[in-house]
């Protein structure tokens, strides 16, 4: 989780990724952030997030993102 928080923090240093649980629903992240995050996941974790995966359930919190990364790694 710490590594993930570091990756996310590089993209949006002004967001508390450890505490937020409605990153998409509360419009804290915009579509530009999403592209940067997906690209970072590609580079750091070697997972390919598809457009169909870009749903709030997968991106509302760092925890949800980690669960998605682990799912995609399998």
């Amino acid at each position, binding site marked *: 989780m710490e590594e993930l928080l570091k990756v996310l923090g590089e993209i949006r240093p002004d967001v508390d990724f450890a505490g937020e649980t409605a990153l998409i629903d509360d419009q804290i992240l915009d*579509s530009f952030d999403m592209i940067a995050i997906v690209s970072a996941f590609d580079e750091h974790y070697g997972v390919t997030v598809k457009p169909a995966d870009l749903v709030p359930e997968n991106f509302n919190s760092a925890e949800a993102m980690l669960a998605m990364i682990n799912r995609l790694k399998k």
Partner: protein
Amino acid sequence: MPELYSMQFLLFLAAVLICYYAAEKLFPRFQWVILLCASLFFYTWAGLPYVVFLLAVSAACYRASHIFAEPGVSAENKKRVMVGVLLLHFLILGLFKYTGLFRRWSGWVIPLGLSYYTFQSVSYLLDTYNGKQEAAGSFWKYLLFLSWFPQLLQGPINRFGAMAPQFFRSRKFDSRLFRKGLMRYGYGVLKKYAVANMLAATVSHIFTQVDGDISGCVVVFGILVYSFQQYTDFSGGIDMVMGVSELFGIEMSENFRQPYFAVSLADFWRRWHISLGAWMKDYVFYPLALSKPMRKWTQHLRRKFGMQWSRSLPAGAANIAVFFLVGLWHGADLHFLVWGLFNGLVIAVSDCMAPLYRKVNLPKKGAGIRLFRTLRTFIIVNIGWYFDAITDVRDSFICLRNTFTRFRASAFAGDILIYQIPYRRENYMIAAVALLIVFVVSLLQERGVDVREGLLKKPAVLRLCLYLFCALLVLMAFPFAAEAGGFMYANF
């Protein structure tokens, strides 16, 4: 097509409502069939031959969604079916929207709601293809989703997943919801007829007579009037159809969220024509920005230039492509394309400059900074309207130039007479009073107040006075309307 306030339409609506709520007692499981029959009847009202296109799109898309669910069909064949049906959608849309030759040859006009049901159908097609949405239970249910009559006039672009659970359950009459639906319909009527129709001719008279001498102050007046006319026309129409849909207890996707309170252009586009923006984001922006070449470009930029450029450039480029398409959707005219590119470019440049904004030590919260950002956004949006309201790009640039070089504020009273606007002072007074109501309601909504729920809790006398005042404004407005009452976003 009957007007949304005409006696014909209101009688049709009353008949459908009676049948719908009576059906709940007689055959609750099939209550939705009333909605389908009403929608098809409404569609044929606009012209029988056009139903062919609606049926063709529905049948192809429905069949495709079931092929995607069949285990025996290979991934390659599923992709072929998806691409084929996608092409069919855009072939029909393109034929009507972009080939005047076809329309002249056939004598047909753009079928009612073509853009809106095409976009809805494409979202269903792609969601079922990607496994995000289960296929519809029957063709007739899918046909209702595409033909639901309130959405045909000017959207919103609904999603099957959000609409299906509402359509296909039995529903008892709920007087509270019904009154809320009526309120929303009435609010839309106020916006459309007491504001938009009071201002329309001002815009058309000024911007069809542009020459090199046009005063900047007249241009700014015309653009400001346009910004209110367009908002009240489009959002008023949406309020009316949302209200109609809510009379049946069915809530459609929101299309507006106080757009002129936005704090950036990107924020504005998350509040204006929301359902189109969401559609473009899901089905154009993300697939394009996450395509293989774009992913490679992003990673290359990150290694060479760091995080900020790798974030802003690919997403910015995809965003410009989206706005180019949004411009093209408005029409195959140069001014729409320039308008689309302007919006895409401003958002991309703004994202590139984000680190700079962070370095400048501006306060993040507070009424002052919020007002500053809102006003700045309003000005940027209005610069964009120069390429939307004015249909000749050369004229747009003349107007933009004269805004800064030939403002002539002191000569406004004389200069405005040149354009022979067929309005009296009463037009602007009615529009101003109605706009004040819209402003107060918007301000409350921006603060999270459920205005309709709040109104229902007020004493009946107060509510009655308010309704009568609004109705009076609308009735006073009708004799002053210089142009017929069609909606700007109909026929898309």
